[in-house]
């Protein structure tokens, strides 16, 4: 079942949770983002903006899981997005070509997989469950949540985080198995199928009195 939706974008962040702990707040300055994540993160300064947004959204979603996450728990990560890692691939290959086409940069090459961002989040948050990029153009968020539910049903993970991001926003849905606690469902409309509009709608949702 879905436990929470958390999001982080350039203007605000927040959580819409099943146990009534929903909130929305203005986004902290970039240099205070680590305090939101709530734990030291190696190589944080080297991370891309998208990875930092994903890390923030995943950290927020993780806190709403039940039972609370502890290091070593089998929490898995899924991500989606039609672009895959095209931008990172362009960046690596452009740098390689402009540098003389004999040697690339390892620190750019390692981001040329659709799973690079989510594995970086997994390392930062010590999440040791399955990590997969799973995308379907027709229904990306539904595919993500269904795959997450399937992994939980198969007992491949105790909890799952499903990430949906672009360069400006990240949305993270947390799911767990087990008995429902004030469950809620999420119906995504086509205009919500981009992280920033979705984050903005969530912001509006939890800001409502």
């Amino acid at each position, binding site marked *: 079942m879905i436990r929470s939706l958390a999001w982080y974008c350039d203007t605000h962040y927040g959580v819409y949770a099943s146990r009534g702990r929903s909130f929305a707040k203005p986004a902290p300055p970039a240099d205070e983002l680590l305090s939101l994540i709530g734990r030291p993160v190696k190589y944080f300064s080297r991370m891309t903006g998208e990875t930092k947004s994903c890390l923030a959204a995943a950290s927020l979603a993780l806190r709403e899981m039940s039972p609370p996450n502890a290091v070593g728990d*089998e929490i*898995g*990560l899924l991500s989606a997005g*039609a*672009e*895959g890692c*095209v931008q990172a*691939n*362009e960046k*690596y*290959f*452009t740098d*390689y*070509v402009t540098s003389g*086409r*004999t*040697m*690339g*940069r*390892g620190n750019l*090459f*390692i981001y*040329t*997989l*659709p*799973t*690079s961002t*989510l*594995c*970086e989040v*997994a*390392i930062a*948050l*010590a*999440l*040791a*469950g*399955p*990590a*997969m*990029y*799973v*995308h*379907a*153009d*027709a229904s990306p968020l539904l*595919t993500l949540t269904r*795959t997450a539910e*399937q*992994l939980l*049903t*198969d*007992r*491949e993970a105790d909890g799952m985080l499903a990430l949906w991001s672009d360069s400006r926003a990240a949305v993270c849905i947390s799911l767990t198995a087990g008995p429902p606690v004030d469950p809620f469902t999420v119906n995504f409309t086509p205009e919500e199928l981009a992280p920033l509009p979705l984050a903005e709608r969530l912001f509006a949702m939890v800001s409502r009195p």
Partner: protein
Amino acid sequence: MNAVIAQSDVVTAYGWGTEVLWAGLMSGRTAIRSTDRFAERKFVSNQVAMVPDLVVAEGESRCMAMLKQLLAPLRWTIDPKTALIVATTVGEIEYIEQAVLDDSPEKSSFARPSVLLERVKEFLRLTGPATVLSSACASSAAALTRAASMVRHGQADAVLVVSCDAVSEFVYSGFSTLLSLCEVPASPFDAARCGLTLGEAAAWALVTRDDHKLATKDSPAILGWGNTTDAVHMTAPDRNATGLTRAIAKSLAMAGRAPADVDFIAAHGTATIYSDAMEMTAFRNAISEPRPVYSVKGGIGHTLAAAGLAQILIAARAMSLSVLPPTVGLNHPDERAIGWVQNTPTKLQRSRTALSCNSGFGGVNTAVLLGSINQ
């Protein structure tokens, strides 16, 4: 009810078909060759395992060239409602290369994984649910586990898993930069191993229920699986092999099998120093007593996303024939691999259960336990 691999096929540097791959590996000769394709690039190696005589049409990617020929027999026979999972790491990466080299940024969008998914779907005229899945070099094995899960839970009668990755300057330069390539053909689990050789392959597997009309008593069953993440490092494997050990344990638990039930192991076996060592640690952690282990990468190189499926198809063949192929390129086993790996074909006393393992960048691991329907 089990999920089984009812039909399958593969193309590798040995040529077209599982039988050709099997014969190539059993011959002990490698399909890895020197190439002058990247001669001007001054990479650390010129070794590569490419599909021979692949005809690539103007504007087409090597992945689609492989897939069109490989999937052609399915085109008019597959049920259009069959669910599809396409597994790849970088897919049609040539379009990124062309976008940069030809200063044609509009070509980049053709390299999106979802575009490859649509191409495959359209080629096969499929109308069912379609997903593209990536989990680094464990992609096709992970896709197979998702397909098996969908079939077991009744979400689909049949799921077609398609996987491909091609040799490209993009990937070759990256692995060269990371000093992962060996100057000579890869020699998995060898004491003198010096790195991987890049290869290319495409493969597909139709996963169905064991009582599906296309399944036979010889169809290999997907008994159990485990997907985990090391959560340690983006490129280096976990030296304690915790992630892969857990993946193996999960696969055994799901299948209701004990470590002693594993008759042989199809290893990822890239031939990099740390990855092979990590795998042997995982096998020792999870299985304890030595089991016959082999890797196909000394024959066909590291075929990235397709690696898992290619080795699973060979594991299924080995299981049915009760013979293991040799680890091509292996001369003197690493100290920790002695008693496990072999460089000659091995006749098995028992071949009811096979374990296949894959790991990849980001610390992903997948273990798949194969067995016979009739067990």
